[in-house]
């Protein structure tokens, strides 16, 4: 009798596990379909960084190979920030405000599935943007790297979405849907400038350079630059630690806000 009950419970736990895995996969698949069917989000997010790079990184900087390498690294960082910040920030603000998040929580979706699906989307967008930028850098910018450096920079770009996902999550769990895009632009563009993504920090006023370690984009760009031999020569560990710390803090705050919001 007991044996029967136990095996029943086990089977139930098993089916629970497999259906949870299925939830994760379905969640990611439908998040992908949703974005694919919303070209108004996907197209500008994918086009904006390459256009910006083309204009300011390639056309206006035709002189030195040094500058081309520097700008390729920093524009890669600039490019991967957008899908993470907007995908999370605006996406979650909308879904929270419209009640979709509440319904899914009650339903009850596994909480991790929702975030992982959105992270996977941000990672995918980052990869596409990186590939476009790399192609442009190679063909138009004269950037030449060893194969492993292309790969390493690509993985930095894809993994680099995480701190910005966490920041976007934090914004999305508080901001209202109509205000979120403006708020994110207000963070995204100044942070890119202040982190030296558009122009090396040593060409900017000194106080901007001194403030730079406050921004996650600065630390990510230092990782990218170190890969290309353009770092400041110091260890990358503090930058890595700053990024991890920033991600964790944003995530913890976002979790608390989200729990209160719905």
């Amino acid at each position: 009798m007991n044996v029967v009950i136990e095996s029943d419970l086990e089977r139930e736990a098993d089916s629970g596990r497999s259906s949870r895995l299925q939830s994760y996969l379905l969640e990611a698949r439908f998040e992908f379909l949703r974005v694919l069917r919303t070209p108004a989000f996907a197209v500008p997010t994918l086009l904006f960084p390459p256009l910006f790079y083309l204009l300011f990184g390639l056309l206006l900087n035709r002189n030195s190979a040094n500058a081309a390498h520097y700008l390729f690294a920093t524009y890669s960082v600039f490019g991967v920030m957008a899908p993470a910040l907007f995908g999370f920030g605006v996406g979650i603000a909308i879904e929270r405000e419209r009640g979709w998040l509440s319904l899914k929580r009650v339903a009850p979706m596994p909480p991790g599935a929702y975030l992982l699906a959105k992270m996977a989307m941000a990672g995918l967008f980052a990869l596409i943007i990186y590939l476009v930028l790399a192609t442009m850098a190679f063909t138009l910018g004269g950037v030449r790297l060893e194969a492993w450096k292309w790969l390493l920079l690509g993985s930095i770009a894809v993994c680099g979405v995480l701190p910005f996902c966490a920041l976007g999550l934090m914004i999305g769990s508080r901001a209202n849907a109509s205000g979120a895009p403006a708020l994110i632009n207000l963070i995204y563009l100044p942070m890119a400038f202040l982190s030296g993504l558009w122009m090396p920090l040593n060409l900017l006023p000194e106080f901007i350079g001194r403030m730079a370690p406050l921004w996650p984009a600065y630390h990510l760009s230092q990782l990218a630059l170190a890969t290309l031999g353009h770092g400041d020569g110091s260890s990358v560990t503090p930058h890595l630690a700053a990024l991890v710390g920033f991600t964790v803090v944003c995530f913890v705050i976002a979790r608390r806000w989200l729990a209160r919001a719905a």
Partner: protein
Amino acid sequence: MIVATDKLACLESASKHFGSVLALDGVDLQVYRGQVLALLGPNGAGKTTAISLLLGLQQPDSGSALLFGQSPQSLSARRRLGAMLQTAGVPDTLTAGELLTLFRSYYPRPRTIADSVAMAGIEELLGVRYGRLSGGQQRRVQFALAICGRPEILFFDEPTTGLDIEARETLWKTIRQLVAEGCAVVLTTHYLEEAEALADHVSVLARGRIIAAGSVPQIRARVSQRRVRCVSRLPAAAIAAWPEVRSVERDGERIEIVTDSAESVVRQLLFEDSGLTELEVRRAGLAEAFVEITREAA
């Protein structure tokens, strides 16, 4: 063993503030297996807040909310419920079939797609994107999402708002069928006939408090008034002067009298007018009771 008095969900002297507004003020509610509880009340009475507490979307400031004896936020409690919220915010870009597939994956033993689709009556909508459905069709898809997990308790916040009469009847039929299978239902509604058609227990909320609770006949009996209609030549002004007559209205040769004591009024009518025809006495419906109870509370 399933006990008839199995308590599935309850609020115990639950209160909830939003800023300075007291949305719920010490509310007690119990929902038992196989029972349909209707929460009635004017807008802003606290119906949606009560549901949010039971679903764990809000936490009470004081008192408690329990679902299957646990916190409503626990995943194991939520796997046993289904819900149709007032604002669902379903993404426009996914099809009804995709949404159903996703929601079924959340539950350990979901209904089959075919069953869910048939119960909600959305056979021909499966391949259509949610944003292209009419309001009524969207409600039916939301209903399918609510029942696809084979829930033991269902929460409906204004389920038939925006549905035409036929769709509403179909939904009621399905809800009755689920209840017959032992499912409990909590519904908030503006439509009194909906409560009358479905509920075996009604709680009337006003300004965050429960001001009346009981079966539909019990609530109706809270109002002693009855309506007497007939065709008579008696002058309305004379009838209005009788004791226990609340109001008299004449419409052509017809007279309608609202009274607390139908028996004595009828006796008097027949005594004074031997030519009286088409006599009819009706107890006040839930609608009249509701108006009366909320007026008393105000």
